[in-house]
């Protein structure tokens, strides 16, 4: 009984608190030079992808994201480890961002490696 109670308490605390903590930590920013993200909660991760090295820009929307009007923008570089994802953006904002990034990366003619 005590164990079960503890499990229930821990998981409800997790369900209530984790998203808040994540929401407080997650950040993204697009400057003229690079795309930045910060994500994670226990392990936090800052990622940078320079504009001149971006190879592909795509957005995806899962069923849950669709119902909430959200979208995830993913930016990849030539490195297998270099992908930067901005998850759960407002769908319109995501579309505008993809457009902006696509235009920007076409202006920098390096081969990205």
């Amino acid at each position, binding site marked *: 009984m005590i164990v079960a109670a503890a499990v229930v308490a821990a998981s409800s605390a997790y369900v209530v608190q984790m998203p808040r903590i994540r929401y407080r930590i997650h950040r993204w920013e697009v400057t003229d*030079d690079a795309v930045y993200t910060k994500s994670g909660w226990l392990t936090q*991760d800052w*990622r*940078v*992808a320079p504009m001149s090295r971006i190879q592909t820009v795509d957005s995806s929307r899962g069923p849950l994201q669709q119902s909430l009007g959200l979208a995830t923008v993913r930016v990849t570089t030539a490195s297998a*480890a270099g992908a930067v994802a901005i998850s759960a953006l407002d769908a319109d904002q995501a579309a505008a961002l993809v457009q902006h990034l696509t235009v920007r990366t076409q202006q920098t003619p390096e081969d990205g490696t």
Partner: protein
Amino acid sequence: MDPEWSRLDPRTIAVNLMRTAGSLVPLFIGLVVLGNRSVTDSVISLALLAVATVAVAAADVVRWFRTSYRITDERVELRGGLVTRTHVTIPRDRVRRVETTARLLHRVLGLTVLTVGTGERGMGEGDTLRIDAVRVAHAAALRAALLAPPDQITAVAGGAPGAASASGAEGSVGGTGTEGGVGGTGIGTTGAPGLPGAPQEQVLERFRWSWAPYDVLSYWTLLVPLLLLSVLFQFVSAAGVDPLGADVVGQGSGWLTDAPLGLAVAVVVVGGLAVGVIGSFALFVSTWWGYMLVREPNRTLRLQRGLFTTRVTTIDESRIRGAEFRQSYLHRRVHAGRLLVIAQGLSGQEGATSDRSDALAPPLPVASADRLTALALGLPGSSPLGATLHRHPVGALRRRLVRAALTTLAVALLTGLAIGPGPAPLAAAALAAVFGALALLYAADTYRGLGHSVSGSFLVTRQGAALRRTTALACQGVIGWHVRQSWFQRRRGLATLVATTAAGSGAYEVLDVELSTAVAVADAATPGLLTPIIDR
């Protein structure tokens, strides 16, 4: 106009046939020789085997007819597939690596397999293309043409006399294939820089017998005797003989048990080691015989090696992004290690190190490795791998000690549980004490291995104890950063900095440095890129 499609060399069929026949031999022995059956059974088995052989041979012939390749001004293309048709296309400006591999059968028939790679992982099938197999001379011409500077790119076999044509008459294909190979030597690039003996080639390093001991000194050498023993043991058991009861082994082990214990152990250890050393030495010679690292005039490095299977890897020098030095614990004791190149198109995939395409040399002494690194990377001064590295903060040592202590605790608990009550806990405690001491030493050694520096235009990082890896990554090859902080790292104010790159394994880490150091390192390597986010 695009050139015609070319067929593989017809001798490929012969190679495949011989290989098939070879692989059927054990089956033949199993079914007919060892199979303790009646005559009719044997005849049926033989007939089935014959049918299988014919079917496989027919498949080989059909596959040969359906496989063709061509190299146009823009693309390398390969069509093939027995049932499912495949068509692989690689744009020529994406070619980063060209490799030829000839196994023994190929060499007897003068053939070689040409592999073309782009080094773009995550693209699946389209990443590499294998032309299996063509004449050696033709492969050399294709290789030279594929690695030609962009302004000299020409379609191979386009307009060449007697270019092997897929639409050629069946009977004459063998002849045209050969001519295409010979004729192809002269086309592609002017001056054919890929040919051995061309005047401007610079040999950076050659095979050295004095390096053999470093290759022999590996964990494999210690493992070989164990493997051999277990194989022998199983073989004897399978033959229906109890290995320990058998006369020969019984006598041997009887002699061993009768003899003084120390002598018996010594005999087993020395004998096993001798087998291991001889085996490793043979492997060294077969892998590295004829090793040569050559700088070719058209800005490529050529790496060739092999006694039975010969292998020639060509790397576009403009795609080289650094080097990595790997030292096992044994190699560290004798100041030696393995040297790998970090380049696009040479995947950093793990595997037997001797079989990797990115191995620049056999295991070699540190001084030779430094010299060769500087030469291969085209650096005038010393190798970045030999740079003095900054020590990591004490917090990194604490993390490793805590990990060692926790592992020891877990081991102690588990052995304690497994042994149960009685006089044994004393033994468990002793075991845990020994394990704990070793774990703490290991932790300290791992900490001593940590280091980083931005030396010249290279980001140099070092980590590991059982396998110590020092990597030097060219700053211009860094195409992004991650800064990672686990909860434990945040408590100690530490962070892990990861440089991402398109070459090698794709990510190189600086473990457990202070957050400010991580930012400073990234800033020194790629000024102004990481600072904007960390500041706020």
